[in-house]
């Protein structure tokens, strides 16, 4: 493995130092934590929004801290949910008295750690609510399982709940917006190569020279199926065909699209995929209102991409257009 790092044990703290150095005009590090918060947090009269998770998904999650999106992001170790005390620090740092919404991706670890933090916060009289994002259609959603994972669709939750909070809405209203996004957003991912954990230096899974891994998450886990590498159009087609039925789209619907690189995929390829996504949606007379192509929710240096489709209405479109100063999502 080759990485531009110093000590594998220090990657998170050094990354956060570098992040805050780059964006010192708008963010701060909450002292002795792995929490990055808006410089002016808590913002009075505004519901605070806290997200986070394991590291290795950059620009998620610190990149989404800024006016119009998150108030704070908590970083765990690579692919490891942050601990309750860290999440608690984030909650305390952003609560202005109007309450705090936790954006949790649906992983056992994230859910447990964030819920424990919420318990700690409630014990101190802070009003906390949460939304669990589960947009990954590769995983079956059943009451006998842990349910679908939260992946790139989370970025839309940050954006739209963030924009809603900026209007001065209540915790309940912000949560409603977030829930609405969760209900209408679906994602599917594919890997062309595994990623490498800084700590172990090992590839997260094995993949043949002409093989792809369909239905991957964002933690280097193997996907749901190994398949032969085919053309970008065929891969895109298969991914979109898994997403659309879940959204029950018809010809009058509008959607926002995100083509998200997993880390090592050239932007050229993401745009080639985007071309096909638009073609497929046009065939179904679905209108695309917004398109985002780039790296939004990565898995270290994994090659591959995910496609996210969010069904939008007038409210969501307006919130999408609202300004955002987050370093990784400027509008």
């Amino acid at each position, binding site marked *: 493995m080759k990485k531009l790092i110093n000590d594998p044990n220090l990657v998170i703290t050094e990354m956060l130092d570098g992040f805050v150095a780059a964006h010192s005009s708008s963010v701060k590090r909450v002292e002795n934590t792995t929490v990055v918060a808006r410089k002016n947090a808590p913002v009075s009269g505004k519901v605070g929004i806290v997200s986070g998770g*394991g590291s290795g998904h950059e620009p998620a999650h610190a990149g989404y801290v800024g006016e119009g999106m998150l108030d704070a992001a908590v970083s*765990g*170790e*690579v*692919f*490891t*949910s*942050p*601990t*309750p*005390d*860290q999440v608690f620090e984030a909650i305390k740092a952003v609560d202005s008295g109007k309450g705090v919404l936790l954006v949790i991706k649906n*992983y*056992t*670890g994230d859910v*447990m*750690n964030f819920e*424990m933090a919420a318990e700690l916060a409630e014990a101190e009289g802070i009003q906390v609510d949460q939304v669990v994002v589960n947009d990954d259609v*590769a*995983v*079956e959603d059943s009451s*006998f*399982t*842990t349910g679908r*994972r939260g992946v790139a669709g989370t970025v839309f939750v940050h954006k739209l709940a963030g924009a809603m909070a900026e209007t001065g809405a209540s915790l309940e209203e912000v949560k409603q917006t977030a829930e609405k996004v969760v209900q209408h957003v679906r994602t599917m991912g594919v890997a062309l190569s595994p990623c490498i*954990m800084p*700590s*172990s230096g*090992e590839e*997260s*899974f094995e993949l043949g020279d002409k093989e792809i891994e369909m239905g991957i*998450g964002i*933690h*280097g*886990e*193997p996907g*749901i199926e190994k398949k032969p590498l085919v053309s970008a159009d065929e891969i895109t087609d298969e991914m979109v065909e898994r997403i659309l039925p879940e959204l029950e789209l018809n010809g009058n619907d509008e959607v926002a699209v995100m083509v998200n690189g997993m880390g090592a995929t050239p932007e050229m390829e993401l745009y080639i995929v985007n071309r096909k996504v638009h073609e497929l949606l046009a065939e179904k007379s679905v209108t695309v209102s917004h398109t985002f192509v780039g790296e939004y929710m990565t898995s270290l240096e994994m090659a591959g991409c995910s496609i996210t489709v969010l069904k939008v209405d007038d409210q969501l479109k307006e919130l999408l257009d609202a300004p955002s100063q987050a370093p990784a999502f400027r509008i």
Partner: protein
Amino acid sequence: MNVNQTAAWITHYNQHLQDQKDYLTSLDRKIGDGDHGINMARGFAEAAKAVEAETFETSADVLKKAAMTVMSKVGGASGPLYGTALLKMSMAAKGKNVEGDVFAEMFEAAIDGIKQRGKAETGEKTMLDVWVPVLEEVKSSGFDAAIVEETAQKAMEATKDLTATKGRASYLKERSKGHLDPGAVSSYYLFVSLAEALKEEG
């Protein structure tokens, strides 16, 4: 189990985790995200340090210290679960001589905590599939450290044939079969460490 043996339980466990770090991580790479050994080794190194740094009155105090450290240093799924298990065991041990039936009470409390936090049941290919058979054995035949270790080992090995329906391995569905559950293996070492600690003079 006196207070020194309780501390030894934690430090022995940490030793095993450091030794097995790469093994546990490689198990997690197969059906999870390849960090279980790293998480556990990081967190229990801190827990062992915390336990060694202080003198404690009771076993419950040792377990509580370990629980709090694990909760804030492991992260992932295993952090809250092991943290909760240790905390519940501490609560069950509080004000008691840890011997005989108290072990069963502790394990039962731990299991309740794990189930409540993680919303899993036995048979879902998680650490519970080691804890629950151990508890059942202790309940039916009384506490015997050597037998606990043996039961844990068999139960751990049996997770190989299970299909995961909870935790990260569940995303693989049938593909999770044929692999040991990393959390079951780390739980097995917890019982190995307990047996070792109990063999020592207090």
